């Protein structure tokens, strides 16, 4: 095992648990507790990928989720995850990762030739070219661009893992479990508040693990472990480790992702891969830390150039030496600690290069004590090397006074200062403000119940973080209504004061033009920002969009402030004038599966099943989706039976004998109260004041804009008791519509109503023999005199109580039986039994549809949300002497004028040719290929077994007055044209004698 760059001791890793993994096919060893990045560095692997545009070799720059470069394809097959940051992947045994965006290999990448053409590939170059010849854009240029773009390759198989969602409420949410967060959580919990503390790492501690701190006389790491233990023991605290807070939404709602199973080869049984938490805290304490900025100098993207804090983290957290000969370059006091930690880990620190003329004296003394050279007033002008850093050129920050100074090294630890992580604060609706003293943006005025503390607020000193955590936790608990006492303070030792003098970009040696990368992932250089500003893309938003600065998968965490500062310099304005772009969720990229949760695939939407569903299934019925219901569409009797065979047979059975259909899916609403009749009068266009008890009536409802909304029957069951049915699709909207008018417009009407759709199974028994069948099982007189068309009665069917309605959709003598749903299947079977000798059969929605077309009953395809009662031939039902919804708006000129699409019947005049739904009705002079005017279209078709031909319903301009006219029905999609005749929409029994028989 060779982990050449592993320190002999130290780090929060378990050296007793070696793990084996492969990168680009080669096997390496690491330890439990490693990330893929730390394990690769331990093995001396620095080259991890190629950059987006220029295909430059790239390595590891950071130690966390801000990493712009070190992205790999993790895992293989259906579990492959492209663009995964090596710095956030917890190592597990057997892990497989591959580099991406290179061909044929990472070391030799053909596309690296782009680097040579980089002057051509300046910001926005593609807007200026690729326009000629015209056809080349789609066929050639874009094809090439698309293949070059993107980094990793997605899996194309279905994700074998699942995701779930979870909700939790609390008093105080603490974001981040570093020193400030730990103190805040304990402090709040000590008040008795319900606390959730979330941290993206497996271990709580944050910078206490990354750094070499002491708290309360013990190492920061041990102190953090004690606090974590304390929290784990409190029953009012929920620790969410491996959890990233990704979004701060309205009304203090927080989105979080818990990586439940990403640290193991695959999820354990029953466990999700990741879990999305929606958190509802009363108060939020943001202790999300800060992100370091890199210095901007020539070739600052070379593998071996890292953030100063990342270098410390690799040493302290993972016991890894990221190099053997280091330069620390900084404009602030913080990076000095890197030099000291490197030194203590046995890495040769060649020099600390501080761009400031006068570095802090105590820090200088510390370096002196370790014999580390301090070079003040200089910075790195450029880095050089091939696929790894070999040397740097130092330049003066005080003007080019001398030749650059060359220093050999294989590691640069650079720091341009720290950006507080203001992302969540900004997402919450607040505006960060610029703080000159730390040369960065800090949280501004809170807009929601949140407060930022510690480094997230711009306080970079440990004692401040601990103190702010203690106070903020207590304050949050108090604001949530808790009383208690402050916990005792924790004391940090040996902490240096933070100081910085901004240096946004280094002078270049020999005045040469180097690539100075700002956004390393999107290959945005300082010169791109200059160019964009010169071309007028000089607001921060235009700059971002033109150069793609900050739009890569790291969302510019390490680059945005640098870019802003360079833009400000170009514009000659102070940074606050230039402003920031808006921070958008998610804070880190989140797998889509989390947002979907378990409502995917078959669970995407619930299924509604009737009480007869199981019987239908056993019969081999073919189902159709209606709303969320599954309805039996037809009943094949042999495998050869087609849809056509079935509906013709089922229609014939109904028309000539008797058949039954499950109509349970119709909406059903129970309405009671003294004012029901008036209520119905306002809902429907027709009159309801004189409906007798025991009678049903068909009604039409309009929307407020005068267009037809729904139709159905309502039955008067008792003095003040009515029963409404709606279409299947509109059951829920009609109920909400009634509730809306009752509660907002007509509260004076004393009615109550509720849905009873679920309570009743509805079975329609239709056909000339339906009365005969029912007489076998029903205990009331069904004669035409006793129980005429539109009659209603309560009865018993054997022992089952039933409601019986004499209504008909088929146009035949028909009844509808309603029984309580748990008896639905039994009732169905009893009716089948009662009609067995007569040869009763079930029919499905297709036969139902055939019969409604034959009868010209309008349904969903004619009630298309644009048709009026007049269009549908139903205006005669309207009683305009009373008030009803939609009354006035239905009389607007264009709704009653000429040219309306009106419902018509349609018959083919070409024998043997089938009509087609969606065919348009055009006059016969029109050629298929020419632009023309549609005069209407076919809405429903069927073969009418009764008429022995294909018939259809359609909507045709002024159709009501065009019966007898011939016209073409065309379907250019099918290259089809059929001659049809327009007729009355009622094809069968126009006088309605059968239903009254």
């Amino acid at each position: 095992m060779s982990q050449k760059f592993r320190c002999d001791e130290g780090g929060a890793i378990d050296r007793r648990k070696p793990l084996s993994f492969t990168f680009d096919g080669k096997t390496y060893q690491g330890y439990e507790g490693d990330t893929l990045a730390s394990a690769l560095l331990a093995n001396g692997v620095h080259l991890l990928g190629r950059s987006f545009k220029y295909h430059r070799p790239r390595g590891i720059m950071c130690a966390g989720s801000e990493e712009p470069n070190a992205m790999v394809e993790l895992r293989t097959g259906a579990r492959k995850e492209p663009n995964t940051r090596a710095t956030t992947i917890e190592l597990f045994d057997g892990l497989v990762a591959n580099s991406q965006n290179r061909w044929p290999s990472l070391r030799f990448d053909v596309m690296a030739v782009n680097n040579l053409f980089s002057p051509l590939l300046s910001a926005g170059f593609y807007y200026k070219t690729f326009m000629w010849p015209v056809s080349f854009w789609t066929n050639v240029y874009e094809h090439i661009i698309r293949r070059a773009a993107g980094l990793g390759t997605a899996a194309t198989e279905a994700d074998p893992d699942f995701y779930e969602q979870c909700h939790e409420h609390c008093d105080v949410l603490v974001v981040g479990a570093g020193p400030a967060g730990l103190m805040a959580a304990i402090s709040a919990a000590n008040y008795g508040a319900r606390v959730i503390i979330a941290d993206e790492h497996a271990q709580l501690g944050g910078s206490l693990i990354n750094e070499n701190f002491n708290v309360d006389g013990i190492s920061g790491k041990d102190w953090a472990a004690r606090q974590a233990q304390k929290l784990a023991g409190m029953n009012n605290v929920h620790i969410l480790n491996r959890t990233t807070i990704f979004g701060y939404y309205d009304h203090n709602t927080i989105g979080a992702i818990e990586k439940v199973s990403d640290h193991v080869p695959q999820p354990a049984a029953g466990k999700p891969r990741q879990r999305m938490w929606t958190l509802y805290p009363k108060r939020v304490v943001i202790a999300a830390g800060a992100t370091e900025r890199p210095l901007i100098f020539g070739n600052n993207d070379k593998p071996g150039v890292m953030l100063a804090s990342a270098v410390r983290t690799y040493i302290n957290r993972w016991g890894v030496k990221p190099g053997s000969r280091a330069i620390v370059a900084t404009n602030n006091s913080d990076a000095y600690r890197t030099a000291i930690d490197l030194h203590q880990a046995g890495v040769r620190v060649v020099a600390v290069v501080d761009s400031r003329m006068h570095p802090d004296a105590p820090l200088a003394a510390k370096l002196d004590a370790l014999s580390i050279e301090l070079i003040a007033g200089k910075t790195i002008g450029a880095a050089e090397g091939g696929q790894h850093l070999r040397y740097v050129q130092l330049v003066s920050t005080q003007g080019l006074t001398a030749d650059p100074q060359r220093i050999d090294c294989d590691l640069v630890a650079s720091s341009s200062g720290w950006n507080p992580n203001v992302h969540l604060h900004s997402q919450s609706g607040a505006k960060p403000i610029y703080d000159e003293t730390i040369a960065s943006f800090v949280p501004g005025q809170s807009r929601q119940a949140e407060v930022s503390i510690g480094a997230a607020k711009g306080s970079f000193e440990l004692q401040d973080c601990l103190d702010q955590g203690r106070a903020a936790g207590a304050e949050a608990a108090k604001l949530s209504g808790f009383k208690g006492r402050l916990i005792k303070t924790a004391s940090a030792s040996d902490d240096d004061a933070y100081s910085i003098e901004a240096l946004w970009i280094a002078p270049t040696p020999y005045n040469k033009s180097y690539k100075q990368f700002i956004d390393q992932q999107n290959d945005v250089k300082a010169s791109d920002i200059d160019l964009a500003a010169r071309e007028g893309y000089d607001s921060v938003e235009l700059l971002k969009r033109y150069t793609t600065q900050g739009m890569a998968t790291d969302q510019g965490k390490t680059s945005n402030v640098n870019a802003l500062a360079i833009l400000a310099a170009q514009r000659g304005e102070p940074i606050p004038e230039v402003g920031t772009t808006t921070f958008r969720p998610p804070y880190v990229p989140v797998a889509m599966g989390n947002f979907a949760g378990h409502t995917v695939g078959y669970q995407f939407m619930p299924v509604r099943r009737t009480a007869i569903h199981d019987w239908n299934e056993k019969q081999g019925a073919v189902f159709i989706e209606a709303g969320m219901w599954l309805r039996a569409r037809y009943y094949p009797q042999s495998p050869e039976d087609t849809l056509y065979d079935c509906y013709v047979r089922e229609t014939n059975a109904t028309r000539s004998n008797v058949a039954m259909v499950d109509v349970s899916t119709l909406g059903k609403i129970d309405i009671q109260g003294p004012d029901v009749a008036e209520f119905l009068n306002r809902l429907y266009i027709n009159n309801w004041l004189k409906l007798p008890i025991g009678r049903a009536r068909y009604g039409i409802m309009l929307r407020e804009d005068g267009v037809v909304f729904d139709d159905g029957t309502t039955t008067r069951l008792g003095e003040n008791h009515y029963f409404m049915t709606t279409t299947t699709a509109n059951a829920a909207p009609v109920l909400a519509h009634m509730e809306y008018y009752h509660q907002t417009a007509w509260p004076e009407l004393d009615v109550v109503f509720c849905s009873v759709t679920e309570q009743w199974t509805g079975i329609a028994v239709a056909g000339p023999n339906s009365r005969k069948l029912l007489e076998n099982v029903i205990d009331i007189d069904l004669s035409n005199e006793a129980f005429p068309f539109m009659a209603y009665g309560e009865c018993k069917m054997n022992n089952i109580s039933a409601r019986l309605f004499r209504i008909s959709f088929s146009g035949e003598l028909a009844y509808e039986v309603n029984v309580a749903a748990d008896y639905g299947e039994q009732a169905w079977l009893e009716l089948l039994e009662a009609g067995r000798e007569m040869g009763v059969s079930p029919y499905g929605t297709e036969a139902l549809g055939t019969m409604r077309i034959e009868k010209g009953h309008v349904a969903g395809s004619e009630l298309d949300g644009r048709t009026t009662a007049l269009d549908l031939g139903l205006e005669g039902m309207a009683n305009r002497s009373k008030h009803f919804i939609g009354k006035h708006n239905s009389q607007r000129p264009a709704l009653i004028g000429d040219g309306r699409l009106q419902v018509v019947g349609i018959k083919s005049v070409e024998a043997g040719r089938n009509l087609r739904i969606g065919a348009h009705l055009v006059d016969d002079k029109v050629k298929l290929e020419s632009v023309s005017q549609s005069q209407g279209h076919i809405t429903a078709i069927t073969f009418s077994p009764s008429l022995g031909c294909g018939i259809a319903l359609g909507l045709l301009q002024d159709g009501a007055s065009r019966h007898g006219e011939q016209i073409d029905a065309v379907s250019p999609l099918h290259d089809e044209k059929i001659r049809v005749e327009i007729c009355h929409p009622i094809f069968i029994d126009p006088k309605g004698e059968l239903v009254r028989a």
Partner: protein
Amino acid sequence: MLRIECPWCGVRNEDEFSYGGDASVQRPADGGSLDEWYDYVYTRDNSAGQHTEHWQHLNGCRAWITVVRDTITHEIFDTAPASPNLPPGSGSGKKTNGVKS
């Protein structure tokens, strides 16, 4: 996530509710002019700022409620039953979402 206080059920997520639009429009009486009906159905203040609107607690108690909300910040100032005839709940009129005043 809007967190809307139902006067009866307490604070609930927006996805339990369905939106009913501007509650300030006055439904004309029967016989109102076509202009009045046009205004009622079609034109809206569409205010950027305080907006009085209807919501139905569809996945809860099904009551329609009137909510006063800021359409820019989503701050909710007040919620109340839409119907004057329903018995009161226990918690109407309080501001309970996380927006700081």
